[in-house]
């Protein structure tokens, strides 16, 4: 029988996955451990999360460098010995600092954890911040910073964060070259003492592991030998720039990087989930309004997206693209045209159904895999929310109406509330 290729196969409803919040196990000193058991491979990821981000720092680079220096030497292990241990057991040691936390993570075959956790214990409890390693790391970071500053997308994103929040606010990226030269090793030790201790830490474990892991964690991290008090920090209010349009000069740049956006609501606001759908329609997937218009119809860019960035104390919308200097103005015109269309016209039935289905698929993709479960746990826990958030998200995707979306667009997407930042070469 000849198959009729013009008729698509029937589409079946997408099953909702079952999500179970992890238990909270307290170590003897009260340190909380959240185990997320799943997967088929005998491998684990363990995150040690300290509330020690840029929000907590009082000089630039303090949070990031303190975090990075933890693997550069401790009382019982030199930097080289730490590296050797993790590499020998085929494990990955990762460190990162963001706005609100400093994290040390290990990914390893579960069988090797008893050999690795004592090293992490020494790193987080007894780091020594060696002078030579400090100099090397600062030099390397500074050169990486200079490299990043050659990129128009980086220049525009930095200026954009400053426009939204104001210099001096922890969400504004305003680090300068001289900050690397000014940074003192002693400031890292201060920061370490204030924020890296058992009363300011949580542990998230994902993958396949046995009960013995909790015993091991308690043995290494459950004692009263590394408790302290966390200082309270006061943070200034955001101070957005009065300039709605800002240009950053990058001589010789062939393409300009564009950022258009504004602050929106936080994750606990009732409009958060409906706004997520609205922003997906605007620029959150391949057939979004912005991609269809600006890439697939006009060919101005390789890619354009609208992202709803969620931070603990703020949320913001950013539309990001890179285009040839000659398409700069035309691209801006089309971006604002698409923002107006959302306010003026009801979204059509077919488009909305497609976005619902796409988001349901995405919902499944986001929850897939053992390490994703840890990210999803933190995605609510860090924001003071619970797993009801994911139920609500599912319901919002299924039930949101064209009227509600138009009403949100009218409330949030007025052109005169946006900031536009362009990094590129001079005109003419």
């Amino acid at each position: 029988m000849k198959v009729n290729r013009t008729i698509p196969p029937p589409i079946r409803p997408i099953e909702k996955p079952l999500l179970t919040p992890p238990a909270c196990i307290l170590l003897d000193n009260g340190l909380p451990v959240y185990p997320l058991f799943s997967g088929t491979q005998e491998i684990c990821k363990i995150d040690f999360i300290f509330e020690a981000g840029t929000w907590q720092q009082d000089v630039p680079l303090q949070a990031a460098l303190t975090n990075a220096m933890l693997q550069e030497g401790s009382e019982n292990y030199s930097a080289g010995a730490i590296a050797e241990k993790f590499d020998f057991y085929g494990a990955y040691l990762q460190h990162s600092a963001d706005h609100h936390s400093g994290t040390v993570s290990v990914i390893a075959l579960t069988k090797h954890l008893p050999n690795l956790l004592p090293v992490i214990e020494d790193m987080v409890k007894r780091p020594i911040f060696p002078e030579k390693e400090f100099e090397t790391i600062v030099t390397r970071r500074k050169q990486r910073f200079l490299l990043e500053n050659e990129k128009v997308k980086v220049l525009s994103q930095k200026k954009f964060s400053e426009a939204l929040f104001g210099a001096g606010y922890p969400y504004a990226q305003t680090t300068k070259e001289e900050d690397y030269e000014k940074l003192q090793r002693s400031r890292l030790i201060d920061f370490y003492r204030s924020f890296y201790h058992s009363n300011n830490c949580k542990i998230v474990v994902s993958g396949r592991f046995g009960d013995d892991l909790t015993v091991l964690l308690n043995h290494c991290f459950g004692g009263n030998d590394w408790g302290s008090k966390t200082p309270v920090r006061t943070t200034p209010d955001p101070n957005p720039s009065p300039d709605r349009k800002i240009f950053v000069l990058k001589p010789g740049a062939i393409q300009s990087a564009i950022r258009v956006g504004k602050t929106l609501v936080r994750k606990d606001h009732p409009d958060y989930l409906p706004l997520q759908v609205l922003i997906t329609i605007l620029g959150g997937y391949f057939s979004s309004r912005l991609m269809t218009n600006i890439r697939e119809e006009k060919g101005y860019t390789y890619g354009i997206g609208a992202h709803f960035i969620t931070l603990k104390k703020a949320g913001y919308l950013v539309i990001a693209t890179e285009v040839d200097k000659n398409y700069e103005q035309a691209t801006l015109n089309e971006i604002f045209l698409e923002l107006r269309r959302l306010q003026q016209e009801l979204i059509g039935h077919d488009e909305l159904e497609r976005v619902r289905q796409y988001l349901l698929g995405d919902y499944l993709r986001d929850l897939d895999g053992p390490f994703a479960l840890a990210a999803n746990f933190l995605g609510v826990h860090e924001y003071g929310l619970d797993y009801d958030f994911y139920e609500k998200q599912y319901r919002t995707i299924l039930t949101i109406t064209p009227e509600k979306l138009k009403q949100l667009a009218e409330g949030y997407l007025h052109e005169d509330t946006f900031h536009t930042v362009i990094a590129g070469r001079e005109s003419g």
Partner: protein
Amino acid sequence: MIEFSRHQLPNGLQILVYPDYSTPMVAVDVCYHVGSKDEDPERTGFAHLFEHLMFGGSKNIPEYDIPLQQAGGENNAYTTNDMTNYYLTLPKANIETGFWLESDRMLELAFSEESLNVQRNVVIEEFKQRNLNQPYGDVWELIRDLAYRVHPYRWPTIGKEISHIAGASLDDVKSFFYRFYAPDNAALVLSGNVDVDKCLRLAEKWFGPIPARKVKKPLLPAEPEQTVFREKTVERQVPDTAIYLAFHMDDRRSRGYYVCDLISDILSGGDSSRLYQKLIKEERLFIELDAYVSGDHDQGLFLVAGKLSANVSVEQAKQAIWKELDRLKGEPVSVAELEKMKNKLETDHVLAQMNYLNMAQELATWENIEKAELINEQIEFYHAVSAADICETARRLFRAENCSQLNYLAKK
């Protein structure tokens, strides 16, 4: 051991199925055995431009993305020197949508002047975004041009110059399709929450009727052995002066490839590696320093790439790297160092299996190299490598006559 099954349709299409029931998703991956190495030297970048056109609709389906999104799916694709790989993921209930979409564009593309015009422009912007407007963005192009004289690896996948992309015509597009896009030049890989019997039924239904096109692969010119040291110096607006040493190495079907890969790990895999500990941390000659293999399927390149610390000369940098390379030739690596490399491979092998989509792509890659079964055999290849193999391969590779050196100077 990675368990997957192989099947074949009468039209030549190879089918590989890798079940993983820990996920509610499925991946449908179609790999065509055509890459930028199969291009006309005057029309470089064409395989990749063509990849973009594959999303412009097919004979019976005017839009590719929309029905996929309606089924909860997402897709993407990539082109390398050796292959073009298309992949999509879907909730398992809607797997048939993937078969329907992929089979129709294998059957026949909707060739349109309009789609070509737009995608030409999109790819030109991609060229600018990735290469022209990035610090160090032209490094690969310079290295390939220096290291290869005749083999088509001498140009980058994105294309040698914008004019090649701008000049592509609809006739070029059509002939490329019929020349390379065919069931007998492709593999269909299914992974995730898949039922083997159902997959085979669907494959027969949707891909079975597509005619074989008796694809003849172009015979690629072999790169003659390099006999003299090559060096090129350029000056660019970048923060750090960089040095690149490129050595011709074995192809991915040879055992030698795996020895080279282990050598690159000894030199720069992880923070305990030789280059990192000695030249970045101890002697502080470099800000960044890496050794890696290009991963090309034919004879590729072994690279050492470094960014120099302030006040270090190119000559000093070069000598420091050669000292480490020479050490590999004479002094056998220790048992512990070799064991370390193999432990890392074990972890990576396990990590790779945690993601069904990654597995589909891996199987497609091995199938393109020679056969998917190599995904398991390669583990044995690595484990068989001895300290003597490493010395022997280092002596064969790390010779000045086999080296192309690019000096990328920071403009003051």
